[in-house]
């Protein structure tokens, strides 16, 4: 499985709430949903925990380290401080430009 996003790609995290529709083991924190970040690197592929934890077929998904600036997420904090979060590819969309 090759990563769709290269290091340095700008991505936006989908602002979805699938937990309102079904039971799944979500690893996407609410605070990054809808936020724009930058791919630091691909971390490899892992069985999708959303399904794995409920004993459903869990195809592997590419996992990324995605970097976010603190200030836009919280409206506070020091400029330059960042958040680094592990996110699966199916939660990411490309940012144009």
């Amino acid at each position, binding site marked *: 499985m090759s990563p769709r996003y290269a290091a340095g790609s700008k991505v936006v995290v989908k602002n979805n709430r699938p937990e309102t529709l079904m039971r799944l083991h979500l690893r996407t924190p609410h605070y990054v949903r809808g936020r724009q970040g930058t791919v630091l690197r691909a971390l490899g592929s892992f069985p999708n925990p959303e399904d794995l934890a409920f004993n459903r077929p869990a195809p592997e998904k590419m996992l990324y380290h995605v970097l976010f600036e603190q200030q836009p997420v919280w409206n506070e904090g*020091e400029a330059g401080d960042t958040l680094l979060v592990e996110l699966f590819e199916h939660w990411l969309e490309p940012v144009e430009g």
Partner: protein
Amino acid sequence: MAAREPAPEHVALLEKLIGALKTRGILTEEQLAAKKAATEKASPETGARMVARAWTDPAFRQRLITDGTAAAEEFGISLAGNPPLGVLEDTAELHHLVVCTLCSCYPRVVLGFPPHWYKSAAYRARAVRDPRGVLAEWGTMIPAGTQIRVVDSTADYRWMVLPVRPEGTEGWSEERLATLLGAEELVGVALPKLAQAKAA
């Protein structure tokens, strides 16, 4: 590790689960014993030895940053059946702080059981939002010129920090350097301080 006595109904449930797994051939007594032994043996001393080696051996440092899992295996720590280990390199310009906002993911194979504060709702909620405030409460002052990168351990990796080697430790042995490091330094809530070093 000292802990409360488990509730009898929990023990009974656990025994039933183990019995069911054995009946289905999913788990053997030997596998269970090996996992228990590895879990009990794990402590921050392992992570400390790895960081001390990285401070004194540039080739190992590179391997540790590139592939923490393989570097741990060089120390005889098997990560079979465990999540891969990632290592976050601090510099004068960048300080890493590890948290798991969703639960309590922690690099147990190299640090042992997570401390209670690491699992607390307060640490998990505040570390991502106000890292400098949280660090100040630990007495850890990060200079304004140093960026803080909070690493939220949300998925399949476990993360350990490789702190900056403190000044004044030139010529120290690996063993002595390791005494500067505990769980707090290895997840980034504290910086290694000479005051806590043991004599050579």
